């Protein structure tokens, strides 16, 4: 197996993909950022420039290092440009068929040794790998948002992933300065398997009149020392995203706690999507937060 030197990121126009590209380039790897949406990619490139400029301002890197990192990064809307990558990480949206198709296409483009990693947070690595033509070289590599700041990566082998490939991918995450943890290929791995049902429980508690959102958040923050209350977190994640997570989870687990609570659906229907729409379980006006 070849050493990993060049890394491709699919879905690099998104927040997660752009963050992963930063992680890889900052650690000294050559990075090709791919997204079929040219505008999104251009926006991500601009944001990446801004991120590194801030890193220099804050003394986290020298100007010389910034230039070197940016030299290692390129972007493309042509999938063929990933042809000489040793590792390709996909961070496209959570849809099994689309991810399968992407890996199938990449299988025809990339050399035999190239490892495919999926940043999925809920889908099965084994299913994503299924039919791609190199099931033994597909691993789960779930970064936390924002990837350029959060160190944790959930690493999962699929049923057909070779140990050698998994170890190579694991070592690569360590080489980037990230901290990998190993999980089985199960829905939501660790983080979302705990968080998705919990968030739904919290929403159901609001619906059941257990307490006002502000009181629930206060109890969790004061009682358990969490930095952010669960409803504040759901507002940050996005209520529509929480529904999408439920829709990935519930059909696989059939756990009633993983199904989207009626209140969540009503809020999304009303346009209360969380921070991004200015209103979710709380109302946001600039930096001020009011109970809702």
């Amino acid at each position, binding site marked *: 197996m070849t050493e990993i030197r060049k890394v491709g990121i699919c879905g690099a126009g998104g927040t997660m993909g752009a963050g992963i590209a930063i992680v890889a380039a900052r650690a000294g790897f050559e990075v090709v950022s791919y997204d079929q949406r040219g505008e999104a990619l251009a926006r991500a490139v601009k944001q990446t420039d801004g991120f590194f400029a801030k890193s220099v301002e804050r003394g986290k890197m020298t100007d010389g290092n910034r230039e070197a990192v940016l030299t290692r990064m390129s972007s493309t809307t042509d999938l063929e440009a990933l042809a000489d990558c040793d590792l390709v990480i996909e961070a496209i949206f959570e849809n099994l068929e689309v991810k399968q198709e992407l890996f199938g296409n990449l299988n025809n483009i990339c050399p035999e040794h190239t490892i495919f990693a999926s940043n999925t947070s809920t889908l099965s690595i084994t299913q994503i790998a299924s039919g791609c033509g190199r099931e033994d070289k597909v691993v789960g590599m779930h970064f*936390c948002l924002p990837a350029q700041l959060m160190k944790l990566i*959930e690493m999962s082998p699929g049923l057909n992933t070779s140990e050698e490939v998994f170890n190579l991918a694991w070592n690569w995450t360590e080489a980037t300065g990230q901290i990998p943890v190993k*999980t*089985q290929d199960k829905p939501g791995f660790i983080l979302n*398997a705990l968080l998705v049902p919990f968030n739904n429980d919290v929403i159901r508690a609001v619906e059941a009149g*257990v307490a006002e959102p502000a009181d629930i958040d206060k109890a969790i923050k004061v009682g358990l020392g969490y930095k952010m209350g669960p409803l504040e977190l759901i507002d940050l994640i996005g209520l529509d995203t929480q529904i999408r997570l439920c829709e990935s989870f519930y059909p696989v687990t059939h756990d009633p706690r993983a199904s989207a609570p009626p209140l969540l659906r009503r809020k999304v229907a009303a346009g209360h999507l969380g921070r991004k729409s200015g209103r979710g379980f709380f109302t946001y006006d600039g930096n001020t937060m009011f109970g809702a």
Partner: protein
Amino acid sequence: MHYTIDLSGESRSFPTGDPFLKSASSNADIAIYLGALFKPDDTKAAILIELGTECLGVHTGENAGEEGSNVLGFSRYRNGDDAPSSLIELVRQPATLASAIEAAQTMFESAGFEVALCSDQAGRIIDRLMRPKYNDALRFLDEGLATAKDMDLTCRMGLGYPDGPIERVERGGLGHHYDVTKSLFEIYGTSAYTPPRRAVVAKQRANLK
């Protein structure tokens, strides 16, 4: 604001030596019952009953959803035998007097506590929400999803929690977790509250001694 304490046995919220106990006075406007049987008194601004896993209605009785008076329940949140936190879960009923809620909140806040108001439902806020999560984590551990260390690390690093679910529930005591989940299961009857295998084992081992 002054308060009177009627104590019987050891309080989970205010263990022996807690400064809150020392600041009590006699014949005050607020009466706090810690383990002692409460006596209704309409002349009090508020009467506060310390709750364990039971609902406030066990002490006051219920009346077709119209129950409520100057009596409130409360519990100072504590993870098993960890030191009590500064959180007071204050329990109201549908018709609890607003003046009693305000008096209780003001009294606790002036004593340095933070108050979260909730309705009279089993597990209040924290146990209702957190116990199923601990159950999930304990089940995942049994199923081999990841090691306890990695699950805890994931929650600390991925979500910024001060501790992970396994270390927290074990520190609080799996026997205690068994008692709480068993009581919640009796009310809710859903698998989320079923005492998990590790808690059952811990409880059974404790009973052997």
